[in-house]
């Protein structure tokens, strides 16, 4: 049994978050106190300023900086909203309360800081992320959508009321939600030696039923389609703190492929944030070549699929590993796609007993 206990990374990070908010407040305060209109600078998130960084293997923001000044009639409202959002986040973080984007939108009204719409309040939270460099989950603002994890990992809670309590993530056969309580917990120990992230909930359940976590010594994660940011950062933590390799299984189509890519390289939308991607994770399938090799039942690619493939072929994230271009070409060649469930044609356990072991070892189909 491997005992891997990280130093209290969670608590440390929380402290940094609180410090960054306090610093933001102090900056504004001092400017006001000196009788000048306060200004906040942050990296520009306009498309021209989003670059792919081959070193961190993710999108990052370039040099361009935008300045928001309380002196400008068009800025003063968003400026105030940003200051409010910082104050609100500070309260959440220090009081260890959680919230959602929807919640933020409504909470603002209590301060007569009404946002015109959800989008406006979302944008302000993104501004706060950009200014501080922390993601909204660090401020305890979580998205609505949830994904789940199952496998032999014991965690120790840090949320109020649960401090010191531990949980083994095999405790519940449906898996455990990857929510604020889980993402803020410390890792105590694990016997697992790998992470398998699965696009769809149905296959995740099948894997649990088929005992994949034991057979392959794996932590299983259901992404629920495009993995939420907190799930992506959680996968990264599993990889970094526990040194576990990460394998991603998706549908065999451009959309599944890109779900894997976002876990690996991040999204352009989150270029202002770090530590959301897991550059060493690998996409294990379903590849276009798997469709051919395993003779999977298929559907034809439609127009949108093909258009998407051409887009992806040009995307900088698809340049670093020959795998991507090879599979894109193959998709375009066979003009077919297959879902993960397609393996059922070989019986319920085929995918677990045959396909999965091959793919994890990087071997072709055993005949």
């Amino acid at each position, binding site marked *: 049994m491997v005992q891997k206990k990280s130093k209290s990374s969670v608590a440390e990070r929380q402290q940094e978050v609180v410090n960054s908010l306090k610093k933001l407040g102090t900056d504004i305060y001092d400017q006001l106190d000196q009788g000048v*209109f306060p200004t906040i600078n942050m990296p520009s998130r306009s498309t021209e300023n989003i670059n792919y960084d081959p070193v961190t293997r993710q999108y990052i923001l370039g040099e361009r900086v935008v300045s928001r000044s309380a002196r400008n009639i068009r800025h003063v409202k968003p400026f105030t909203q940003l200051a409010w959002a910082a104050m609100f986040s500070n309260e959440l973080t220090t009081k260890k309360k959680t919230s959602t984007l929807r919640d933020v939108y409504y909470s603002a009204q209590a301060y007569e800081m009404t946002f015109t719409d959800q989008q406006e309040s979302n944008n302000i939270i993104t501004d706060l992320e950009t200014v501080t460099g922390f993601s909204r989950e660090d401020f305890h603002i979580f998205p609505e959508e949830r994904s789940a994890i199952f496998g032999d990992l014991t965690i120790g809670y840090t949320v109020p009321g649960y401090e010191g309590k531990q949980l083994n993530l095999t405790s519940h056969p449906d898996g455990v939600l990857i929510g604020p309580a889980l993402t803020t917990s410390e890792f105590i120990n694990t016997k697992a030696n790998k992470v398998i992230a699965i696009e769809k909930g149905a296959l995740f359940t099948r894997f649990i039923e088929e005992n994949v976590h034991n057979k392959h010594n794996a932590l299983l994660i259901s992404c629920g389609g495009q993995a939420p940011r907190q799930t992506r950062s959680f996968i990264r933590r599993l990889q970094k703190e526990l040194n576990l390799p990460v394998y991603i299984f998706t549908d065999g189509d451009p959309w599944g492929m890109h779900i894997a890519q976002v876990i690996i390289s991040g999204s352009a939308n989150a270029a202002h944030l770090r530590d959301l991607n897991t550059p060493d994770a690998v996409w294990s399938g379903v590849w276009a070549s798997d469709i051919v090799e395993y003779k999977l039942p298929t559907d034809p690619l439609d127009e949108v699929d093909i258009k998407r493939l051409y887009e992806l072929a040009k995307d900088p994230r698809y340049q670093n590993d020959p795998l991507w271009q090879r599979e894109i070409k193959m998709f375009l060649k066979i003009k077919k796609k297959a879902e993960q469930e397609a393996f059922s044609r070989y019986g319920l356990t085929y995918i677990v007993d045959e396909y999965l072991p091959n793919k994890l070892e990087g071997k072709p189909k055993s005949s």
Partner: protein
Amino acid sequence: MAQTFEEISASDFFYRNRDIAGFTNPSRAIFVAIREIVENSLDAAESQKIPPEIFIRLSFESEATKDTQIYKLHVEDNGCGIPPRFIPSAFGQILYGSKYKLKQTRGTFGLGGKMSLLYGQVTTHQAATITSSTGDTNKIYQFKLMIDIQRNRPIIIDRKVLINKDGWRGTIVEFSLEGDYLRAMPKILEYFKQTAMVNPYANLTFVDPKGRLYKFTRVTTIMPEPPKETLPHPYGVDVELLQRLIAITECTNMTDFLRRHFHRVGEITAQKFLEFSGLTPSKNPKKLAHEEIVKLTQNLKKFKDFLPPDASCLSPLGEELLRAGITKELNPEYLVVHQRKPSTYGGHPFIVEMGIAYGGGVPKTGSFVIYRFANRIPLLYDEASDVSFRVIGSMNWRRYKVSPDMPIAIVVHLCSTKVPYKTVGKEFLADRAEIRREIANELREVARQLGHFLTRQEHVDREKKRISIFSKYLPRIAQFAAILAQRERIPDIEKLLKSVQKYGAEEE
């Protein structure tokens, strides 16, 4: 089959064609009747520069048909009064009047008042009562009259002389008529409101059949200069008029004739004109042959060197009174009034005055509210046919930052010795090029001033909005920052707020 010819009198003609004078239906008729009598009263007071004091009562008498009733109309004024010998004809003979001279008046045809009486007579078969005193005798004369329609003659039913103890001066006209007051009511009330607008020196009191009292009180006793009588201008003369002048003249040569009977024709102009038209100056006008008269009329119009008519025969309201009247009835937030210089069409002098009112009591209707007046009479029907409506409609309003959904009222007043009505009922102005041009110029003038106001207004509003935005947000920034920075004291932002106000002007 033999044809029968018969001559009909003027009263018979108008009786048969009462539509053209506006008596088209019971609702319209009651409106026109009130209006004609009230206008006579206004003219009677104004001619003496007396601030008009007019009391109008319409009272229910009996049911007539399903939709109509018989009403009694009573109009009392403090005007000049009518000498007793003229009363029967003034009220009982169509086309008889004191307003044929050339000067600006409301009445024009010697028709309006009598048409109302005539209409009352044919619908109720009752006599009218006219009571009047000129104030300079101690007598009041009262006539009961009917009109002999076929002969166009007054029939005096009764005549009384009363003692004028209190030195009363004025006229009371009282007669019954059939009408539909309920349907006419909105127009009648609108008529009084607009009359009050262009006669701000008049007191009008109206008691309607339900006993409701409407009072329009004067805001000034200043009255416009009354118009001076004037001679016809050569450009406005027709064969008929020329023949009449020849018939009455005592002049025995053309030069004198032209000088005596025409407006702005002096010795030299007369000589030049006679030379132009090939007439010997010594010719006796009474000796002119019919063809010569026709030729002369044509030449009077052709000759280029007549001086334009002067406007002393006109009595515009003037900017001050127009302002007072509009303010009194509309109470706008902003008002521009302007008067054009006199101009002429076809030998008739005219003046356009205009007001444009914005906001305040001016309603927002989605289009401009247009108030049209001619010789101080409100024109309430056929707005879309009126020349000013067209001019207003074809104006490029965006140039002046004006849009029809703003609360804007436009007041157009045309005064002339001959208002170019399209119909005998005074409804709307014909589209004469000269008048159209003057209205358009005047409209541009007031629109330009309104435009300046709106620009200024917009600036002030924007400035107010700016300041309100900063005063809303800056204190909050200070509050939130203090909480984040964990400071007790909230930074003072008064100085910043002040700087925003000064710095506002040059931004944007």
